[in-house]
């Protein structure tokens, strides 16, 4: 079927947009950036389709080298916009960065599902759900961390953001390559990265609670 990605996009985003209009403050921001993540995924899929013939239709080369770069750059742009125009508060930037990455990963999973509907299994779903979507979230989160310095340490900002984009692209590339021959090792990487991040978040949340009680 032609334009299946656009049909899926409409089905997924329409209810989310309707819900977005009813949400209050911070929840609205998170939902908004999830929707932007979905739009970014659709845009990148078209961009990658345009780039594929330039690399002799070599899908392995595309997924291990080119798509990590295009996807990480496109995902970083809306966060950069938010940090520059609205607020560079680290908590908020990290939150929207993660929401955008997860939105991107969710829609990518859905697109791959409809493209391979006859061959998908529950193992595939577990790997895509817990690893690929999470990987997108972590990559965008790391770039968001660098972007949060936009107005604070300008000398470090440019190199810092470039280095974190590099980190995200390499992390993404490593994950994609491991998906070819070492699927299960590849699936463990995002989870192994996610657990320390969550533990750090919990620690910082508790510290804030203690500070709040003291004051």
């Amino acid at each position: 079927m032609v334009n299946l990605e656009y049909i899926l996009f409409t089905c997924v985003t329409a209810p989310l947009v309707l819900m977005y209009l009813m949400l209050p403050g911070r929840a609205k921001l998170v939902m908004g950036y999830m929707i932007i993540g979905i739009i970014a995924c659709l845009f990148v899929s078209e961009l990658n389709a345009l780039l594929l013939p330039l690399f002799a239709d070599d899908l392995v080369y595309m997924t291990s080298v080119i798509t990590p770069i295009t996807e990480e750059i496109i995902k970083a742009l809306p966060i950069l916009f938010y940090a520059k125009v609205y607020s560079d508060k680290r908590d908020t930037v990290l939150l929207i960065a993660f929401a955008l990455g997860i939105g991107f990963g969710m829609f990518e999973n859905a697109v791959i599902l409809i493209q391979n509907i006859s061959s998908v299994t529950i193992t595939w779903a577990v790997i895509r759900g817990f690893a690929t979507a999470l990987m997108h979230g972590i990559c965008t989160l790391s770039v968001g961390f660098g972007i949060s310095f936009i107005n604070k340490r300008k000398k470090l900002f440019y190199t810092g953001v470039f280095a974190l984009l590099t980190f995200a692209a390499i992390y993404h590339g490593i994950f994609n390559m491991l998906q070819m021959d070492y699927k299960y090792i590849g699936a463990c990487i995002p989870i192994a990265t996610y657990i320390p991040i969550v533990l750090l978040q919990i620690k910082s949340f508790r510290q804030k609670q203690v500070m709040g009680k003291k004051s």
Partner: protein
Amino acid sequence: MKIYLIANIITCIGALAGFIYGAVRFFRPRTAVYAQMITFAVGCMAFGRLYQMIRILTVGDFANRFHLGVLGVIGSLMFFFSANFGLMDGIADDGSKEFRKYRIIPLSVSVLTGVCYVLFFLFAGQPILVKIASLFISLLIVLASYYNLKHLIFPDVEYGVIRSLKAYNLLALIFELLCLMEMITVSREQAVGTLIIGILMGLILPAVIISVERGIRKWSI
């Protein structure tokens, strides 16, 4: 391909050891941002090499094709350059005429890098993506090595901040020249040369962190 893999493993282990040591020593409150930037430079190298290792193990191709491992070198050189240019240069060089020769001598490394790029990449029939990536790396080697050599020879008489980092600047300069040589050996598929450079990089990268630690320790004495 096995030799390339060994070279990458050695560099990755050295860089990773340096990065972990630097992260433990420098990522504390009230530690010099300069040291943190050098740690990130070594970290970029470690991560780039990790990608190259996995690429050799899974896809198999490595030489004469653009890949993400190159970004690790670019990120590393960017940090080496911006640490010296952004944080150190203004402290020592006030722009006066008496230091003119110390600004001209470092251009020699930049010229050498430019000549190497023209000879081994621009007119050597390399694929376009390799030409672009090696141009980026060459430009960053030009910038980073200029400031490393400048700070190595600069008579820092007033504060002694740069004088205490001479060992670091020498090691960083050697690393940048090794990056240039590695680019050439990989493009010419000289596996033994790449292995020797990989071993040297694996030794120099942790030494860079140790020399920075020793240098910044003198700041507070």
